C-alpha cells in the first residue's frame, strides 16, 4: 500500500496505515476527510454543535486506539466509522451510567471471527456503495427517521401524518428492495469472480 500525494487516499487505506504504522499523518488525513461528516451525523442524531464535537473527538481517539480491529474484509472504512459514531452516541447519552446498557454490551469487539459469507461481504464492500439511492424518497425518509431519530413506526406515522400500516409496508418494501439489490449485486460479482478464474 502506498499513500499517493496526488490522489486522496481511500479511507480504508488510511485506517490500515494507522493500525499498522501508528501513522499520525494518515490519522490527520482521515480527520480531514471525515470529521465534518462525523460532526454532521452526530448533529442529525440531535446533538448540539458542542456535544457533536466532543463526540467527534471521542470517535477519533477510538479510531486511533482501535484501528487494529478494522477488518477491510468485513466492510468499508466508512461503515467502520459509522459503527464507531453509533456506539459513541449510545455511550455519550449514558455517560458514567454503567447500570445502563453500553455499546460494548451490544457489540462485542471484533474477535477475528469472519462472517460466513466473508468473500461476499468483501465484494459487497468494494462495489455496492449506493444502496440508499435505489430507494424512492418516501422509503428513504423512513430509513432516515429510524437511523437518526430512533423513531418507532407509530411515531413515524404521527410525524408524517400517515396510517401505521403505510409506514410498515413502506419500510418492508425498503428492506426487501435493499435485500434484493444486495443479492443481485452479490450474484453478479460472484459470476464476474468465477469467470475471471
Amino acid at each position, binding site marked *: 500500500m502506498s499513500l499517493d500525494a496526488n490522489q486522496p487516499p481511500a479511507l480504508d487505506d488510511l485506517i490500515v496505515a494507522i493500525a499498522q504504522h501508528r501513522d499520525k499523518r494518515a490519522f490527520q488525513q482521515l480527520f480531514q476527510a471525515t470529521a465534518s461528516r462525523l460532526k*454532521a451525523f452526530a448533529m442529525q442524531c440531535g446533538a448540539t454543535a458542542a456535544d457533536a464535537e466532543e463526540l467527534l473527538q471521542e470517535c477519533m481517539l477510538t479510531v486511533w486506539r482501535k484501528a487494529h480491529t478494522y477488518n477491510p474484509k468485513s*466492510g468499508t472504512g466508512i461503515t467502520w466509522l459509522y459503527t464507531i459514531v453509533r456506539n459513541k452516541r449510545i455511550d455519550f447519552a449514558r455517560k458514567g451510567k454503567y447500570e445502563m446498557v*453500553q455499546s460494548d454490551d451490544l457489540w462485542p469487539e471484533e474477535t477475528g471471527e469472519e462472517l460466513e459469507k466473508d468473500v461476499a461481504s468483501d465484494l459487497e464492500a468494494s462495489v455496492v456503495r449506493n444502496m440508499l439511492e435505489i430507494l424512492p424518497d418516501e422509503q428513504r425518509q423512513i*430509513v432516515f427517521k*429510524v437511523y437518526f431519530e430512533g423513531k418507532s413506526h407509530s411515531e413515524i406515522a404521527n410525524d408524517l401524518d400517515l396510517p401505521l400500516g403505510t409506514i410498515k409496508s413502506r419500510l418492508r418494501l425498503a428492506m426487501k428492495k435493499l*435485500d434484493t439489490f444486495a443479492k443481485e449485486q452479490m450474484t453478479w460479482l460472484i459470476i464476474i469472480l468465477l469467470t475471471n478464474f
Partner: protein
Amino acid sequence: MVNYHPSDELLMQFAAGQQSDALGLVIACHMEKCASCRQRTALYNHIGGELLDHSTPVEVSDNLLDAIMSKLDDDPEERNFEAGNIVLETKQCVPRPLRRFVPDEFSKLKWSGLSPNIKEYRLNIQDPHYTAKFYKISAGKELPQHTHRGNEFTLVMQGSFSDRAGDYHAGDFVLADATTIHQPKASEMEDCICFAVTDAPLKMTGFFGRFLNPFLS
C-alpha cells in the same frame, strides 16, 4: 442451529443503535448465536455507513484536530466497569451481552416462584419501555395458557420449549403479541430458561391463568 430470527425492522433498528436497552440486549443475545443475523446486520451497518458518507459536512472548530493530536499518546482511560466480553468462568452459560447484568450463573440466581414449576428472575435493566425477566420452566412442564397485552420478545437461553406454532431451541428469537394465545411447554429433557422482554404484562386466559395473573402484573 437457530431457526427463529428477529424481523428485518428489528435488525435495522439494532444496527441504527436505536433500540430500547432491554430489547437491544435480546437482539444482541440472539446475534451471539446467529451468524445469519450478524451477516444481515452487516448490511444495515453498511446503510449506516452510507448515511454517514452522505451527511452534509458541518464545519469543525479549527483547534479540534490539534486538541485530538495532543491526546493520541495518552493512555486510554481505564475502563471502570466490568466489560461484557470478559469471559467469566462462573457465568459461562449466561449470554455475553447479559453478563454485566446478571450476578451469577443461572442455578445460583434468586429465582422467585410463580408456581413450583415456573420461576422468574427480574433483571435490573433500566428501561422505561420494557421489563426484562428470565423465566424458568421445569422440564416437561407448561405455562398456563396466556396471551399478551403488548409485545413479548423471548430468547431461549437453555433447553427448549414448544407451543402450537413451533419448537424453540437455544438462540431462537420468538415474538409473541396480542394475537398470540399459547401455552409454552418445556421439553422433557431439561429445564427451559428464557430471557423475555415485555412491553406490557402477560394476560392469562385460562382458569389458572386468571389465578396467576395478579402476581405477574
